[in-house]
């Protein structure tokens, strides 16, 4: 799938943290209805890239230089006020631990409705949109009446995705969305993300340390190491014939059923 022109375009991005460069990306694009993986180990700068795209890097004390464009709109020059309108509504994000996305003292529905109202929906429209989005992620709308602790991790992650859907976000940043989930639940969430791209035309940036998860979902992949992209290209190509040694090392670390020497009992 050829991204032309990219919905999200990163050029000459430099993120510095405590005077140290932590991310340096020359060029990276995410096309319409495309799923691109950003893969690497802990500390490779994947999550800092997410924060930079969301305009949240300064809140953790990092400085951002370069260009991040959403459909041609330069995000790095926007005021925090203007960014707030884009965050959530046009660029949504889900994180590794869905529990941190919801306050434990509020019903998940009240968090979802408040977000929809903040982005300008009437009370009635918000309730409709929330119920519709819940069905899209294959959850019963009445789960909105529960508290986060009454839902499983997989259900909570679905509610977080439902919020992105209800806001009709164009880009979803999914930062290790399944790393805290059981493999069975992971398979469901990956299936759900695949469906969102196909039915809603959503563009997904998937951040993951697990190349098997990238292989399951992504059209293209960029391999990050120490803040830089060492290799990028179509996922099937990069993962079947890696050109960079580091990509090969990451591939070798993926556990495979029955691949090992095996032990005899």
């Amino acid at each position, binding site marked *: 799938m050829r991204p032309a022109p990219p919905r999200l375009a990163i050029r000459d991005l430099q993120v510095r943290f405590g005077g140290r460069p932590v991310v340096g990306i020359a060029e990276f694009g995410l096309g319409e209805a495309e799923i691109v993986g950003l893969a690497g*180990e*802990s*500390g490779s700068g994947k999550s800092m890239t997410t924060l930079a795209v969301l305009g949240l890097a300064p809140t953790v004390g990092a400085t951002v230089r370069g260009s991040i464009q959403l459909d041609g709109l330069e995000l790095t020059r926007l005021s925090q006020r203007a960014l707030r309108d884009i965050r959530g509504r046009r660029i949504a994000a889900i994180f590794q631990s869905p529990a941190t996305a919801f306050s434990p003292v509020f019903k998940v529905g009240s968090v979802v409705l408040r977000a929809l109202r903040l982005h300008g929906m009437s009370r009635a429209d918000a309730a409709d949109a929330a119920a519709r989005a819940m069905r899209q992620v*294959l959850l019963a709308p009445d789960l909105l009446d529960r508290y986060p602790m009454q839902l*499983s*991790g*997989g*259900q909570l992650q679905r509610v977080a995705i439902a919020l992105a859907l209800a806001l009709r976000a164009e880009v979803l940043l999914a930062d290790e969305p399944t790393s805290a989930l*059981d*493999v*069975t*639940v*992971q*398979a*469901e969430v*990956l*299936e759900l993300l*695949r*469906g969102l791209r*196909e*039915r809603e035309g959503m563009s997904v940036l998937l951040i993951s*340390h*697990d*190349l*098997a*998860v990238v*292989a*399951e979902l992504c059209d293209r992949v960029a391999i990050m190491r120490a803040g830089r992209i060492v290799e990028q290209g179509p996922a*099937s190509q990069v*993962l079947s014939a890696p050109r960079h040694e580091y990509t090969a*090392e*990451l*591939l*070798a*670390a*993926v*556990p*495979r*059923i*029955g*691949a*090992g*020497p*095996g*032990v*005899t*009992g």
Partner: protein
Amino acid sequence: MTALLEISDLSVRFGPVRAVDGVSLQVAAGPFGLGLVGESGSGKSTIGRAVVRLLPALSGGQIRFEGADVMALRGRALQDYRRAAQIVFQDPDNSLDPRMRIGTSIREALAAHRLAPRRQAAGRVRGLLTEVGLDPGFASRYPHQLSGGQRQRVAIARALSVAPRLLVLDEPTSALDVRAQARILALIGRLRTDRKLGYMLITHNVALVGELCEQTAVLYLGRVAESGPTGELLRAPAHPYTVALRTAVPEIDALARRSRLVLPGEPPDAASPPPGCVFHPRCPLAVPRCRTEVPALRPAGPPGRLVACHRGEEVLRGALGRALSLTAPQTGQALGSGLR
């Protein structure tokens, strides 16, 4: 086999919740690995905690270590058992004191069991750090100065410091990225032979037991769904749930993910399990009998294989595989059918 650990008919209840319901398992003297595989809520961690006596009481059954009833141990015998059986948890951040240097944390374990006079303790700590692949200089560092994988190595070093014969590894790599995970698994593989360890590897990812465990038990809602030699069990599962766990593992190779069994819904509430087979509401092969009759764990197929499924023989012969290959994976279908 001579069992190092023998769990028979273990039951653990928390109020109305049957966390573990009649489970029997064995760990042979090391080097030997038993894999315990299942989703959240399957009871696998509760079994691990019961084994190292972190639960005040059992609701039923027995845990025997080298023949002795673990729950009956008192005084000196209990302290000896606490040395002999150690546990490593998922998150090393919760088991290491953030204000204590790594060396002090490990020395504390040695001191608690009076295993090394103060003069020798520093040398023992350096030896243990080297054994788990860390620089001995880490002894003077604090946990936050280490990566997650390094902290997990420290937790393993501390467990090893008291020379255990049984190790319970409760999701030891779930909080780590895949590269750190591969290194920890390699370490466990080395220690099992060097130390002749018997261990239980508790995990939700069935791909991790293949290289490290001779035997594997698959748990669902507090019961053993099936058990047997790991290689055979993974090659030819006898329980539909094992098929689901096995095919849920993400694959690099596109061909390997052709036939995936995705289970509809969530595991049922353990406080009010469904009648009959607890798996039937999510099972693609369920027949009327499954809704009324609880399947006993019984031999099926080659010697050593046990399965709690009325249709175990059919699953072994590939009934589910045929159903799966007939059902091409489709995106966006309702979850209802179970097969996608």
